């Protein structure tokens, strides 16, 4: 009877994962979807602790298990609640790494069981064949879980460091060959252990762990910070597959469904993110994005002269405009100026100016970054326009105010085939009458390239930290 309840728990868990993920893909039901999945997870975990049994023996070590659960829950909740909105992407990467490491550790422990001897009587029954017969398939699963989990762990840690700003892009010649060699060597050793079962297996095992960790590091290290979201999504699906490996190992259906679901969904999501940037996945993974070694593209005249606009002039031109479009970017997030931005919007609207926001799919550091930022400032959802719709509106806009966005409004994406961002759809702000660009300085954005928009006749620069600039601008507008 108890085993049947456990089966029910796992069934519920699997269904909630599917349902929850489906609900997460729709804005109206997204929040509930998250709760649904969490409830299912909780059910599956509790069921496992109290109802799981093997050969008639339930799980022990409750003290250890519960203390670990408590520690993890407390620390996890604190970390997740305290982090700033702009640091969310890093947290996703960090927690992903934790999952990967967990999967890898499971493989390590099971492998230790395999080679250090065990009491077969304890593991008889319940269809557990892998202890009684060291069959190759089981070892393949253990190794897969280990390798994928480790790669995901180290890769996610590097991604976390990069988004944190603690790690710089690091590329060296021949790195992709070296990484390929590491991978091939890794798989070769694994195959060797499975086939030959040599005496020095433990040594080779540690070699696999090391090589996998190295591979993860070198996989992510050269990739540009702006591409991190794509990489994190890919690593996310890796961890899903590693979790599924655990499911194979224990004939555990809920781990299998959750793992494969995330593996498949995560892979497709990665493809979708690439499409939004109009770059192929291989381009993201292999092409270093304007790093130190690659010659920064962009034939043709760089730079030129730019105009600056004074606060009072900017205030005037915006107050007497019919329509103002705001293009938020990473600079807005860094300055935490979203609330002031909303104030500006409200003040302008009170003066009869129509204000809308143009959101580029990869503005900021994550898809949806700007939406989250502006929603935090209570900006109405309807004012946030997707790129295609926004591009139509620019033609009838008097002023475009660009707040810390750079690459997403860089015309080189359309005109310069040698540019690293060539082909990426951009916000066509030059169609408006005036373009005001707020940046801290003339330094390039994440892509590391010049932006000809700044030197065009319709554009003027408003230098300063986004928050300060907006506050000053707001004061000027209010005094009109």
């Amino acid at each position, binding site marked *: 009877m108890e085993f049947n309840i456990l089966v029910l728990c796992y069934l519920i868990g699997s269904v909630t994962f599917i349902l929850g993920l489906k609900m997460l893909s729709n804005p109206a039901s997204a929040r509930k979807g998250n709760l649904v999945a969490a409830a299912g997870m909780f059910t599956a*975990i509790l069921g496992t602790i109290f109802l799981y049994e093997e050969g008639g023996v339930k799980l022990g070590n409750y003290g250890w298990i519960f*203390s670990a659960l408590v520690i*993890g829950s407390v620390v996890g909740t604190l970390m997740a609640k305290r982090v700033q909105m702009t640091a969310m992407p890093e947290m996703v990467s960090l927690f992903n790494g934790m999952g990967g490491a967990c999967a890898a550790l*499971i493989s390590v422990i099971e492998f230790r069981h395999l080679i250090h001897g065990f009491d077969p009587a304890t593991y008889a029954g319940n269809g557990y064949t892998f202890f009684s017969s060291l069959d190759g398939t089981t070892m393949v699963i253990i190794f897969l879980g280990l390798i994928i989990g480790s790669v995901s762990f180290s890769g996610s840690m590097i991604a976390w460091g990069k988004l944190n700003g603690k790690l710089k892009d690091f590329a060296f010649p021949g790195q992709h060959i070296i990484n390929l060699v590491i991978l091939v060597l890794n798989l070769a050793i694994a195959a060797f252990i499975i086939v030959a079962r040599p005496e020095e297996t433990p040594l080779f095992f540690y070699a696999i762990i090391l090589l996998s960790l190295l591979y993860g590091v070198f996989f992510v290290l050269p990739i540009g910070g702006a591409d991190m979201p794509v990489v994190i999504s890919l690593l996310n699906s890796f961890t899903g597959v590693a979790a599924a490996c*655990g499911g194979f190992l224990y004939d555990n259906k809920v781990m299998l469904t959750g793992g494969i679901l995330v593996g498949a*969904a995560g892979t497709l999501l990665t493809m979708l993110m690439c499409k*939004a940037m109009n770059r192929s996945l291989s381009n993201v993974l292999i092409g270093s994005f304007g790093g130190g070694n690659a010659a920064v593209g962009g034939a043709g005249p760089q730079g030129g002269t730019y105009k600056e606009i004074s606060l009072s002039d900017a205030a005037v031109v915006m107050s007497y405009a019919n329509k103002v479009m705001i293009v938020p970017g990473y600079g807005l997030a860094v300055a935490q100026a979203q609330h002031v931005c909303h104030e500006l919007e409200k003040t302008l609207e009170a003066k009869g100016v129509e204000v809308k926001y143009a959101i580029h799919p990869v503005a900021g550091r994550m898809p949806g970054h700007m939406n989250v930022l502006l929603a935090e400032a209570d900006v109405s959802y309807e004012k946030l326009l997707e790129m295609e719709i926004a591009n139509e509106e620019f033609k009838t806009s008097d002023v475009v105010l660009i707040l810390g966005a750079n690459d997403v409004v860089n015309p080189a994406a359309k005109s310069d085939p040698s540019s690293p961002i060539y082909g990426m759809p951009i916000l066509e702000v030059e169609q408006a009458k005036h373009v005001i660009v707020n940046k801290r300085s003339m330094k390039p954005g994440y892509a590391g390239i010049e932006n000809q928009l700044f030197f065009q006749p319709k554009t003027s620069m408003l230098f300063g930290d986004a928050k300060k600039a907006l506050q000053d601008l707001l004061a000027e507008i209010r005094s009109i």
Partner: protein
Amino acid sequence: MEQLLNWITAHQEMAYIVILMIFVGIEIIGKVPSVLHTPLMSGANAIHGVVIIGAIIVMGKAEEGNVPALVLGFIAVILGTLNVVGGFVVTDRMLEMFKKKK
């Protein structure tokens, strides 16, 4: 090869589950607005925390004196819990901001 085929035959349901879940995963993600890419990724991140169940099983089966298994298992459960709890809380925070203000 034959070993692999035998294994698949012995675990047919798992093969079906894998194939079906792949289709389900792809179907679900089909029409996601780009604004939800990040919360969705975060939610999926939390869901793959289901790997914690494997860690719990491993910990629960560890014998009394097996210190390495106990310690590693302990760490594994902590890591898995971080993934699950942290993942769901972060996703919730991201989605909180999407509430329509009336």
